[in-house]
């Protein structure tokens, strides 16, 4: 086991710069208004860098740079763009530990996750889209002997992307990789809670991309996000976040008549059918782990399995085993590779989670585990730590309906298949779901009957490149992570060509 040194201390893999500017046109550019804000590490609650507080003026500079870069970038061959994406992937791999420590310090998540999931998935998504763009063909149809319809994929031009704070690097890469592969220039606004790790990546890959192809402006949603999302100079906006801001951004997109991709979260059911417990074997162990995955990334995952549905005959025993298993989870210094649960990403997130734990108690849910803030002592005392928390209740409670985005699980029971599907679908959202059964027929049917964009069958929280990701219902619009995402960043050009010398004969 390894404990990485805090950034900026002797032996540290990362030393953050005291101040980060915006990245525009391939160089660091000071914010026009000269304002900065502090980036706070959730690990200890202390500021560690100053970050440009971008405004509409900085967004305009970034859009200028993007518009200068877009025509040439859009005309590069897919071979060239794929080579650039592959080079970025190689650099990410070569800097795995550095980026993992930076991301952990930024977000509070355990370094075992950044080392084994976040950062390796970043390079893999770049490689996937490098491959996908080279494998993408246009289309043609011979409409008759003399007329051929050709369909070409063309980049949209300049696009805007607004990134969430729960996987600051990986969520950026999910959006960057297809947009770059498709030949677009980008203005990207990171979350104000996690503005720096993407700039650490830029320090490594900044000279791999032509200037202006990727521009990053930090700042607050109202000051930098809104001027980007409402700009008439973007051809698409992509957003991951909550529903009110998502609706607002779609309003801006409608005013400009541009497409939007929205990923707005969920309240994902994790369904355990009785046969899971018919033997206490490796599969049972796997299912138990699948239950505890509600605490993965401190529950700050849009697809967090935050509702566990247990079939009545196994309810007591399965829950009892799962509570004990959750009790043994190691919560501690996120830079320790032994740590399984780290810090919540920000103070307001911590407060919101505690407020929803309070709401759960007042609603009459039964607390089975946790429910308190954790003080880890020493330097970590100021960090934002919450115990993995398990409530029992029923699906009509707010606890079962509102996405808490913390390590808080709501557990209930179901009688039969129809009851399970009915409870699973009784939610505004439809992003993720889990189905656990040894019976392939039940698992398949449940997977198809649940209204969600991603149903994990006998596993959970895997996010391989290639598997499409996106929501049903209020969870959003559009798909990421699959080659389908390329077309979300492409225009379709139809060239309709007549190879005949003969006139139509109308005039």
């Amino acid at each position, binding site marked *: 086991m390894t404990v990485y040194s805090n950034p900026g201390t002797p032996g540290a893999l990362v030393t953050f710069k005291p101040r980060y500017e915006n990245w525009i046109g391939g160089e660091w550019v000071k914010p026009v208004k000269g304002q900065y*804000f502090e980036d*706070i590490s959730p690990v200890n609650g202390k500021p560690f860098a100053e970050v440009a*507080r971008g405004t509409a003026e900085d967004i305009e500079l970034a859009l200028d740079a993007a518009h200068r870069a877009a025509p040439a970038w859009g005309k590069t061959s897919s071979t060239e763009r794929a080579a650039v994406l592959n080079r970025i992937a190689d650099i990410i791999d070569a800097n795995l530990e550095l980026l993992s420590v930076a991301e952990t310090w930024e977000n509070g998540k355990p370094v075992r996750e950044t080392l084994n999931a976040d950062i390796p998935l970043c390079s893999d998504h770049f490689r996937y889209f490098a491959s996908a763009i080279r494998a993408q063909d246009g289309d043609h149809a011979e409409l008759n002997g003399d007329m051929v319809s050709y369909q070409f994929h063309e980049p949209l031009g300049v696009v805007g992307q607004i990134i*969430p*704070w*729960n996987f600051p690097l990986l969520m950026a890469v999910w959006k960057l990789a297809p947009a770059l592969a498709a030949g677009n220039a980008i203005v990207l606004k990171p*979350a*104000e*809670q996690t503005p720096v790790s993407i700039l650490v990546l830029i320090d490594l890959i900044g000279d791999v991309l032509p200037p202006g192809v990727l521009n990053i402006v930090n700042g*607050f*949603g*109202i*000051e930098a*996000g*809104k001027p980007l*999302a409402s700009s008439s100079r973007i051809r698409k906006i992509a957003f*991951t*976040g*909550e*529903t*009110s*801001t*998502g*609706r*607002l*951004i779609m*309003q801006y997109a409608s005013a400009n008549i541009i497409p939007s991709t929205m*990923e*707005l*979260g*969920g309240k994902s059911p994790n369904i355990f059918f009785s046969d899971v417990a018919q033997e206490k074997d490796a599969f049972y162990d796997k299912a138990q782990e699948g239950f505890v995955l509600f605490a993965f990334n401190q529950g700050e995952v*849009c697809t967090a399995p935050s509702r566990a549905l247990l079939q009545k005959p196994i309810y007591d025993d399965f829950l009892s085993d799962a509570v004990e298993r959750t009790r043994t989870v190691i919560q501690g210094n996120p830079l320790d590779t032994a740590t399984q649960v780290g810090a919540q990403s*920000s*103070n*307001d997130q911590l*407060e*919101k989670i505690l*407020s*929803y734990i*309070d*709401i759960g108690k*007042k*609603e009459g849910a039964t607390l089975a585990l946790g429910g308190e803030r954790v003080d880890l002592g020493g330097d970590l005392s100021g960090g934002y730590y919450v115990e993995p928390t398990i409530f029992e209740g029923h699906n*009509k*409670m*707010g606890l079962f*309906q*509102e*996405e*808490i*985005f913390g390590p808080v699980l709501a557990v209930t029971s179901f009688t039969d298949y129809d009851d399970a599907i009915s409870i699973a679908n009784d939610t*505004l*959202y439809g992003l993720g779901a889990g189905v656990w059964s040894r019976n392939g027929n039940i698992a398949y049917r449940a997977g198809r009957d649940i209204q969600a964009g991603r149903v994990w069958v006998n596993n959970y929280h895997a996010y391989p490149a290639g598997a499409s990701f996106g929501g049903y219902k*209020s*969870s959003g619009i559009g798909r990421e992570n699959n080659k389908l995402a390329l077309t979300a960043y492409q225009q379709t050009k139809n060239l309709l060509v007549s190879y005949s010398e003969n006139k139509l004969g109308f005039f």
Partner: protein
Amino acid sequence: MPETGVTATITIPGETIPRVELTAVAVDLLRSLWDEHGPLMFHQSGGCCDGSSPMCFPEGEFIVSDRDVLLGRLDVAPLGGTAQPIDFWMSAEQFEYWSHTFLTVDVVPGRGGGFSVEAPRGVRFLLRSRLMESFE
């Protein structure tokens, strides 16, 4: 700093008990934000990241529809001052399971929240709640 909070007027036809209130700290912050942005509104957000919290937007910036419910109107004007009404909205779908809950809008130190106007101040609006008296 005002010493007391503000309780919303009743805006749902047929109801007799208010549904929303502001803490004193929230009232103070909203007066200051009103000075900066003009008239304001709340829309209760759902979903991931900064969701499940109230978003505060300039009034009219966010287009509500008949699938949104007006839970109450909060006047943050000082005693004797010109009215400063702030509407609190929620989607009808969310209201179905919040309907038995009395909501208190509070303020905590924070770092951001979608396009909500308070984020640059280093604070964040937050919901606290209790069961409505009629349901207790």
